[in-house]
């Protein structure tokens, strides 16, 4: 069984946010207006988080780091343990999945998640006509009152598996990548089976630059970051 994971190379990432919009388009995230945004109610499954180290002198690294932050799909997720209705679970392939019809909107999971990547639907999703025509048929729309989050675009895995089985072959490495990985212009994101040593993600995850966010919490995230490099390294 695969263990799906992602590697984000901060040395390639330019902070362009193509991944952010690709994610919203792919997953039928409704557009928010300025009011919802001001109240912190705009939904984004993937966002760039600025880490600001303050002022620095000439000749040193800029203190600003922009870190793309999707759901980390932890191997030991804190969110699933607090759900009273089993609406969020980690499955054998490593996805931390959200079952929208079960979710009662209590938001314990959004509080428990140390990465703050879970989003609550404060309102009924709306697309002013004719915008609903662009919605993808591959992903369901979440109703008001439930929590949603990054799925690693697992609907793409469903389609890729379907295709592979019909063609009577194994799933290949490039058959399934999430929308963010596919669009990244700097090729800063990689995706695949972390347990298969031949994949690009597994190779990159072994890099000396590899680290994970809030590692000391013991959540065992499956999103692995590569730090910025040194000149000549």
């Amino acid at each position, binding site marked *: 069984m695969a263990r799906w994971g992602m590697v984000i190379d901060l040395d390639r990432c330019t902070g362009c946010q193509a991944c952010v919009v690709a994610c919203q388009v792919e997953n039928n995230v409704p557009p928010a207006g300025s009011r919802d945004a001001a109240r912190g109610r705009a939904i984004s499954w993937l*966002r760039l988080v600025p880490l600001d180290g303050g002022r620095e002198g000439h*000749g040193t690294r800029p203190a600003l780091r922009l870190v793309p932050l999707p759901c980390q799909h932890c191997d030991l997720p804190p969110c699933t343990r607090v759900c009273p209705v089993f609406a969020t679970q980690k499955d054998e392939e490593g996805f931390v999945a959200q079952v929208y019809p079960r979710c009662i909107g209590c938001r314990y999971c959004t509080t428990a998640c140390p990465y703050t990547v879970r989003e609550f639907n404060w309102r009924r999703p709306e697309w002013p006509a004719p915008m609903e025509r662009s919605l993808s048929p591959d992903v369901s729309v979440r109703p008001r009152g439930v929590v949603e989050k990054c799925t690693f675009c697992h609907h793409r895995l469903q389609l890729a598996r379907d295709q592979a089985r019909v063609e009577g072959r194994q799933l290949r490495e490039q058959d399934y990548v999430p929308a963010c990985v596919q669009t990244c212009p700097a090729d800063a994101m990689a995706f695949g089976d972390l347990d298969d040593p031949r994949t690009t993600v597994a190779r990159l995850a072994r890099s000396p630059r590899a680290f994970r966010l809030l590692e000391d919490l013991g959540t065992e995230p499956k999103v692995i970051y590569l730090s910025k*490099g040194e000149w000549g390294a």
Partner: protein
Amino acid sequence: MLSRRRFLGFTAGAAAGAALGGVAGAGLRTLFASAESPIVPPRGPERVVLSVCDLCPGGCGVRVRVIGDRAVRLEGNPLHPVSGGRLCPRGQAALQALYHPDRAEGPLRRRGPRGDLSSFERATWDEALGEIGARLAEIRAGGRPEAVVLVTGGGGAGLGPRVARRFLSAYGSPNDVALHRGDDAAAIALLLAQGVRAAPALDLQSADYVLSLGSALLEAWSAPVHATRAYGEFRRGRTGRRGKLVHVEPRLSITAASADEWIAVRPGTEGVFALGVAAAIVGEGLHAKPFVAERVAGLEEDRDAAGRTRPGLRSVLARRYRLEQVEAETGVPGDVILRVAREFASAGASLAIGPRKGPLLPGRLFDHLAAGVLNALVGAVDAPGGVLVADDPPLPPWPALPGGVSAAGRARPKLDGAGPDQPLLASDPERLAEAIRAGTPYRAEALLLVDADPAFASAAPETFAAAVQKVPLVVSFTAIPDDTALLADWILPASHFLERADLHTTPAGVPYPLVSLARPALLRPVRDARPTAEVFLELARRIAPDLAAALPWKDLDALLRWEMEGLHAARRGAVMGTAFDEAFVRMMEGAGWWAPGYRTPAELWTRAHESGGWWDPFYDHGDWRRVLRTASGKVELRGDLLDLAPAAPERDGALALLLFEPLPIAGGTGAELPFLQAILDPGHEAHWETWAEIHPETAARLGVSDRDWIRVESPRSSIVARARLTARVVPDAVAVPVGLGKRGGGRWASGIGANPLRLLAPARDPLCGLPDFGATRVRVARARPPDGSA
């Protein structure tokens, strides 16, 4: 608001109630998911269509997933050399533009006062073209074709603006005015140094050391996806060879955040810094001496073509840009300047990039010339990792322009004075606005705006707004009515790029000639919109036979076939293909063979449409006769111009206004789309409003706290913005993003934020006459919140 417990109580009640209500069998699972889902699944056959994104001039090849009559997903076309299968956030948001609820329903005619969308009423295309065509025919018959003015914007390189411009020339007007583009200053610098009229193309992926002089290399660059892909290669694409990026700017931009080093200079001194580096390189003798001796003129004193003595750059550097002078002017310690000079001269392939900040902000020519000096000194001219020059694609010439009234009109002086008065400029839109307003040297009787919104996105928005109202017939070709369209007499809805066939030529900054092809993804447009190119073909037929003869195509497809047949006849290049195909074509062409993979024009047509287009990936480095067309045949260093560093700002207590263009709203477009409004700046997590970055020390002096509303006031105008206190900008400056503050633009843009272009002083770049976007000084004070904000 409901407390959590009450909410749970409600939910429990609802669950019990639902059970009573008789859906226990179906279960809450299905109830919740289906009762609220707005998805009506698309029906019909599924297909993939290749197109070209035109949300910026980059022209990325895209693949569109279409189900029935709906476009549901846009991805990069993996075979396309610009996108390489990737897209930027603008491209990803393109379907929001296609299905935008505020696109014009059809042609709109103004019946009430200007400036208000409710003054417009629907008309048919036949009425619109009949009325506009009749008026244009009348002006031409009256012998005043020059009174018709065309303003084109900085959009894509598709057929719309090309056909519009040809139409205007054939009609008989010289007043073909392009709004300034971000590449203008860099292109003028290349013209002065190498005698070539083109935007420079940077071979970033082969460079080892990049010195960015305030450039927006990793933001709204000419072709952002192309540049960002190259950057990824520059960083991590070559084993054991990681490029270094040093960024020089008074503000820690998104590009600076990716750099290995941010060097904060005083406002307006990027070029001075570069010349300080150049002085150190020359002073220490670190420059590429064989290259400079063979290919560079002007380092030593010489005479120009007229026999006048010109100071050599060496003496200018030694006199004007000594280390301690540059240190004092830029605020950068001398040892940092020296270190950068030594690194730049020794790093392998080094590349300096001038301060192009976005599609609207070209940077000062002085700074671009200074970057050019550094490139010349290390031989980064037409070399791998250096500055390249793209060849135009070999498209066929179009039929000759008519004589008679048309030729006489074209011979009249241009209203904007570009050419005779401003020899380095092809267009001078701000002067055009003044001329229209004053009615001199002659009156403008019709104004056609194609992808252009000068009443919002130009160096003089207010002047343009006033000028537009002086013209009796103003026609705006736009999709979502913008600020200028609201002032027009007619709004002719332009089709979205997914609704039309198109042909795009090489975008600025890409070193290969290429022709990208688009097929319509939707057979029927979402609104009653038409391709701008086809509207001009139709107008030509309606106005006069000689005009129709100059534009003889019945529709876009006929024009596309003309172009592709000419391309076939050029006998070079190949259809777009995989990396393997590309390497094969390069190898063959390098050896002097042509291996196109197509024989007949029909075969080229089919295969180019299947892959995304045609290109010629072979770059012949060191073809000096092509890339050095100066009088000397060498790269010319202009010590005479570089002696004139911009004056240091007065110590007047005012702040320097630093403008920048966030990629999502660059070029004055993008704010219309909610996904882009939501991601304006990740560094400040800014969205849906105009913010102003101020150094905490400056803010303390002014009594401003973080997130206060402040008034930013120049001698010309003032705007209100949200203060963001940050050490990512130098003291004595205030940095404000360009792209918000529209009147038009639909529900998500109108009334959001403020337009800092209104603040600009009417200053000109003294070396070339472009607007000087860096010369404005502003005062800042706390203010009341703008209307409608919390």
